[in-house]
C-alpha cells in the first residue's frame, strides 16, 4: 500500500520542530510499523536526507523502548500492543498517518520521535525495589506462602514495561498508572511490606517533582496501555499512600 506520513521532525532538544510530510510506497500489510519506518529511513538515507530518529530495542513488545503517538493514540490504533508490534494491516492504502513523539513536560523531546523517559527511572530509584541480601543465603521462594490471587495481581502489575504510553495518552500527562503498577507489584507481596511506607511516599514525591499531571480518572491510560495494566493499581496506590501517611 501507499501512504502519506506526517512526522514530527526536531533536530535536537532545543530546536522548535515541525510536522513534515513524506510518502512511502509498496508497504506490505504484514510489516510492523517500525519496519515501515525502516523503509522510510532507507529512502531518506538514499536521497541524502537525515533519517527519522525513533526509539526501539527488542521489537517484540517487551523492552518498552518504542514510543510513537500514531493517529492520535499512543502505540497507534490497535489494543494491547506496542508500536513495534503494531502491524500495517491496521491501515488502508492511501491513508495519511500522523506520527508524533510522546508528549509531556516530564518527557522532553531529544530528537524527532525520541523522548527522554528518565523521569520514570528516577521514580523507580526513589523506591521501586526491595532490599534483599543475595550473597549466598537466599531463601527458597516456596518458604514464603503467597495467595494465588495476590501472586496473580502482583504479576499483572509487574508486566508494566515502563513505555510511558499511559503518560502520553493521559490528557493530564499523569504517570499514575505506571507508578500505581510499580507500587502494587510490591504492595501485594510479603517481601514488599518492609519498605512499604517509604516506598509509596518517596515514589509519589518523585512523581510530583518530575512535573507529571494529576490523575482525573479518565481511564485513557488503561485503554492505551500495551500490557493492559488496570486502573485498579491506581486505586491501590491511593490506599497505600493514605495508609503510609497515616502511619507517619
Amino acid at each position, binding site marked *: 500500500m501507499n501512504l502519506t506520513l506526517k512526522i514530527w521532525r526536531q533536530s535536537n532538544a532545543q530546536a522548535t520542530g515541525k510536522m513534515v510530510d513524506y510518502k512511502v510506497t509498496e508497504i506490505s500489510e504484514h510489516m510492523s510499523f517500525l519496519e515501515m519506518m525502516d523503509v522510510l529511513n532507507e529512502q531518506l538515507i538514499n536521497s541524502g536526507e537525515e533519517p527519522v530518529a525513533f526509539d526501539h530495542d527488542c521489537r517484540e513488545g517487551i523492552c518498552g523502548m518504542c514510543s510513537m503517538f500514531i493517529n492520535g493514540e499512543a502505540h497507534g490504533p490497535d489494543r494491547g500492543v506496542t508500536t513495534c508490534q503494531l502491524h500495517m494491516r491496521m491501515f488502508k492504502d492511501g491513508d495519511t498517518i500522523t506520527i508524533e513523539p510522546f508528549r509531556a513536560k516530564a518527557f522532553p523531546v531529544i530528537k524527532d520521535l525520541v523522548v527522554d523517559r528518565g523521569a520514570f527511572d528516577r521514580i523507580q530509584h526513589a523506591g521501586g525495589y526491595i532490599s534483599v541480601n543475595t550473597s549466598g543465603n537466599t531463601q527458597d521462594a516456596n518458604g514464603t506462602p503467597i495467595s494465588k490471587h495476590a501472586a496473580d495481581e502482583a504479576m499483572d502489575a509487574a508486566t508494566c514495561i515502563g513505555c510511558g504510553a499511559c503518560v502520553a495518552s493521559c490528557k*493530564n500527562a499523569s504517570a499514575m498508572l505506571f507508578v500505581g503498577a510499580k507500587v502494587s507489584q510490591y504492595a501485594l507481596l510479603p517481601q514488599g511490606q518492609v519498605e512499604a511506607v517509604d516506598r509509596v511516599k518517596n515514589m509519589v514525591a518523585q512523581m510530583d517533582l518530575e*512535573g507529571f499531571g*494529576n490523575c482525573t480518572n479518565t481511564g485513557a491510560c488503561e485503554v492505551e496501555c500495551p500490557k493492559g495494566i488496570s486502573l*485498579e493499581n491506581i486505586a491501590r496506590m491511593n490506599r497505600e499512600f493514605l495508609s503510609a501517611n497515616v502511619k507517619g
Partner: protein
Amino acid sequence: MSGFFKSSIGRKYAMALSAFFLMFFLLQHFAINILSVFSPDAFNEASHFMGTFWAVQYVLQPVLIFGVIYHFVMGFILEAKNRSARVKKYAKNNGAANSSWMSRNMIYSGLAILAFLVLHFIDFWLPEINTKFIDGDMTGLLPNGEGFRYYEELAHKFENPLRVGAYVIAFIFLSLHLMHGFSSAFQSAGATSMRKEKLQLFAKVYSILLPLGFIFIALFHHFNHH
C-alpha cells in the same frame, strides 16, 4: 500527615471528599424540593426548618459554602496544573478512542454549573438573606401573614420560561459532570474492584436520576401555574 494535602494523591482524596459531601447535599436538597410537588405544606414546613434552625444556618451552611468553593477552586487549580504538564499539544489527538467526553470536559461542565450557581444564588439565596437578616423577618410568613411564603416564592420563580430553560440546561450539565465525577470519586478514594462495580452502578443511576428529578420539579411548577 505533613504534606499529604500538597501531594497529587492527597489532593485527589480531598477532591473526592468534597465531591461526596456535595453528592450528599444534593440528595438532601432534592428530598426537600420534591415535597413541593406533592405537598406545599410539607415543603413549607421543611423550608422553614432548614431556613431557621441554628445548626443548619450556622454550621451546615458555612460548611456547604466552604465545600462548594473548595471544590471549584481546587478544580481550577488542578486543571491549570494538568494543562501545564503538557506544554506542547499533539497535532492529532484521538481522545474519543480511549475516554468519555464527560471525563475530558469536567472543567466545562463545571463552569456551566458555576454559572448556574451564580443565578441560583441571585434567585433564592440573596432574597432569603435579605428577608431574614437585612429586613429581620424570621417568621417565614407571606407579607399578608396568611401562611408560609416559601412555596409561593418557588412557584412564582418558575413562571418565567427563560429561567426554567436555564435550569434545565444547567441540570443537563450537572448530569454530565456527575456521570464521570461520581464514579471517579470512588476510584480516587481507592475503592477496590469488587465493590467498585456496584458503587459505579449506583453512581450512574444517581447521576442520571437526580438531575432528571430536579428538571421534573422545575417543569412541574412551570406548567402547573398556567
